[in-house]
Each structure stands twice: as structure tokens, then as C-alpha cells.
């Protein structure tokens, strides 16, 4: 039987559970009409590249279909009538690739990568062990209002260290 790949986009306002129901309904529709669905993928609620029916997001579902043409026609007819499916596309393919499609593969890679450097992204810069830059910067505004003509540079730095903590607390 000819092999197809079908992708449809569901409206973003319906819950993911409802999308699951729809895709199961289509799967049974195909199997009842003499076909099989070797793969069914949910790509999630993705951003659309442009607005479709006023929305910028949609639930993407992909099927691999092995069915007679009449079954596919019936599937497309149902998609056309459904109010929840805003776009669909069925393509004839030569072979069905095994394993997750490109969309699922990149998601897995992203999850793995996210966990690795998850601590870095976002959030305020963490206090680092090399402290000298901080007191040096905080020391410059602190002696300025003081205008202390203290010849020793070590003492104002040490004195500025404690008020600098207070001033940095105020500034941040």
C-alpha cells in the first residue's frame, strides 16, 4: 500500500489531551478503512512562522500512514470539516524512516543540553571567588564623597570594604 506522511496543526486553545483524542480518532479512522499508522508523533505546541486563523501557535501532530488512497481521502475530508484542525498536509513518501523524526530528535538533544548548562542561563551573575574586582569598583565611589586625603591606600580600601558592602546593598 502507498506510504504517506501527514502533518496537521490543531488550534492552540484546545488542551493537549483533546489533541490526543483527535489524533487517536484519526488513527482509528485510518485503520478502519484498511490502513495502518506505524508512527504517531506529537511535536507539541509550537510557534507558527506566521499567523494562521489569528493564532501564532498550534499543536503539531505527525502521522506515518500506510493505507489505501481512499482512506487518506476520508482522513483529509474529516480534517477539512473539523473546526479544531486549522491546517493539514499529506504527502506521499517512498519510505518510512524508523525512529523519531527530526522534530523529536532535536527536542531530545535540547533537553539534554539544557540540563548541562542549566545553572548558567538567566538569573543574576553569581558572586565569584576572585573578589578583588568588586571592592576595587566599590572603593572608587566610596572614597570620592569622603575625599579623604589619606596617603595610605591600604587603609581606605580596608575601610571602604565594610561601607562598600552597605553601599552595594543599597545600590543593588
Amino acid at each position: 500500500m502507498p506510504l504517506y506522511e501527514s502533518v496537521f496543526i490543531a488550534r492552540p486553545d484546545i488542551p493537549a489531551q483533546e489533541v490526543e483524542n483527535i489524533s487517536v480518532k484519526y488513527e482509528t479512522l485510518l485503520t478502519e478503512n484498511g490502513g495502518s499508522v506505524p508512527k504517531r508523533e506529537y511535536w507539541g505546541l509550537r510557534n507558527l512562522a506566521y499567523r494562521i486563523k489569528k493564532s501564532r501557535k498550534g499543536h503539531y501532530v505527525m502521522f506515518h500512514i500506510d493505507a489505501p488512497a481512499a482512506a487518506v481521502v476520508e482522513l483529509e475530508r474529516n480534517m477539512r470539516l473539523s473546526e479544531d484542525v486549522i491546517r493539514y498536509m499529506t504527502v506521499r513518501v517512498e519510505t518510512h524512516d524508523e525512529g523519531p523524526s527530526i522534530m523529536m530528535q532535536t527536542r531530545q538533544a535540547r533537553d539534554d543540553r539544557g540540563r548541562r548548562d542549566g545553572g548558567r542561563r538567566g538569573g543574576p551573575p553569581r558572586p565569584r571567588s576572585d573578589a578583588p574586582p568588586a571592592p576595587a569598583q566599590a572603593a572608587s565611589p566610596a572614597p570620592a564623597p569622603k575625599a579623604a586625603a589619606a596617603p595610605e591606600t591600604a587603609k581606605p580600601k580596608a575601610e571602604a570594604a565594610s561601607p562598600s558592602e552597605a553601599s552595594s546593598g543599597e545600590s543593588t
Partner: protein
Amino acid sequence: MSEHARSSRPALPRRPFFRRRKTCPLSGANAPKIDYKDVKMMQRFLSERGKIVPSRITSVSAPKQRRLAKAVKRARILALLPFVER
């Protein structure tokens, strides 16, 4: 076609030739499969505005360029790629 490019370009006339000697990035070993779902791969061959870049710049072979164009157009229908950006 190369001579026409040579006469109209003010730059070194040899440049279009050199580019064409580069192999097609979609052929040969380890070449990515042209898939309308592979947005990352396709974006390499699109301009900033989302237009398909001609093969004389990307040095994609002619049959691969046709398949790539078809894949891009399919992806555009599925809103995986924009028709126009900005």
C-alpha cells in the same frame, strides 16, 4: 552563463568559477537528508528575509536544489518556515 557573469561583475572574474568548484553541500557522504521537517537544515539555504538562496551562491547541485525548494515550500505551508520575514 559564466561569461555573462564575468562581464557584469566589477570584481575578480574568477570568483564565480571558484565557488562552483566547491562540492554540493547536500551530496556526498554525511550529507543531510532533504526533509521538509528539518527546519535547521533548510534555514542554511534561506536568506535573511526567508527567501530561497540561488544555487550559484550555495553551490547546491541542480536536482538537490529542486528537492530543497520543494521541501522549503512544504515547510512554509506548515508554518515551519515563513514566506517572508520582516
